[in-house]
């Protein structure tokens, strides 16, 4: 069984990914990478990643977020983060990645920011 479940929703031209589980070295990171690559292949390059259900992330998972961010940017799109848990917020602060990612607490506010 995979460590992570990734569900997709569409809000206009923004694809919302609801992640539940762990984004860690191995399956969790691979599943995220595959999803992002597939969305970009389908021309969906406005992506909002909801991390409310992510109970755990390690440095490999953080690296996968960065990789996703870079891949989406290269395709002319935008990847933003929604509802960070305190743990993830702490890790992004330690790594200074809060200066890189656009982060939102409210989905409506995040969606408005794409306009």
């Amino acid at each position, binding site marked *: 069984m995979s460590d992570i479940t990734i569900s997709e929703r569409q809000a206009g031209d923004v694809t919302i990914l609801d992640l539940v589980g762990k984004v*860690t*070295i*191995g399956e969790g990171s691979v599943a995220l990478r595959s999803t992002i690559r597939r969305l970009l292949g389908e021309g969906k390059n406005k992506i909002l990643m909801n991390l409310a259900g992510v109970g755990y992330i*390690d*440095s*490999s998972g*953080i*690296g*996968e977020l*960065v*990789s996703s*961010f*870079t891949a989406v940017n290269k395709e002319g799109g935008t990847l933003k983060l929604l509802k960070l848990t305190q*743990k993830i917020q702490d*890790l992004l602060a*330690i*790594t*200074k*990645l809060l*200066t*890189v990612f656009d982060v939102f607490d409210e989905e409506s506010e995040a969606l408005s920011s794409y306009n």
Partner: protein
Amino acid sequence: MAGIQQIKLPSRIESVDEAASKADEFAKAQGLGDDFVSAIDLAIRESVANAVKHGNKFAEEKTVDLTLARTDEGFEITVRDYGTGFDIDEIPDPTDPENLLKTNGRGILFMRSFMDVVEWSNHEGGGLVVKMIKRQ
């Protein structure tokens, strides 16, 4: 010492989860709180992942030797691999602006952020040992 556990793990990615699971179980049995256990969990995941990937380079015949110890000082973890070691000073700072978008290199930063002591040494029998202490 109030308790010690030694575990030998094969050099594969699944060992990261196994090490974390054993450590969680051991730490909780020692009555340590959630925040403390969470810090240990992350440090073990990062150090075992480094040992598997960069130390033993996934060589199945090489093990990762994990020691967990509840001490008077707090909690001590040692992770030994059987690789050729590395120079800690050569690891780039992942928080440097030019490295922010690199996809790896943050594990040691996490270990140092969540543990009070993180030290590397060469084992006399070969390989690298990282010793980490979380004080109470």
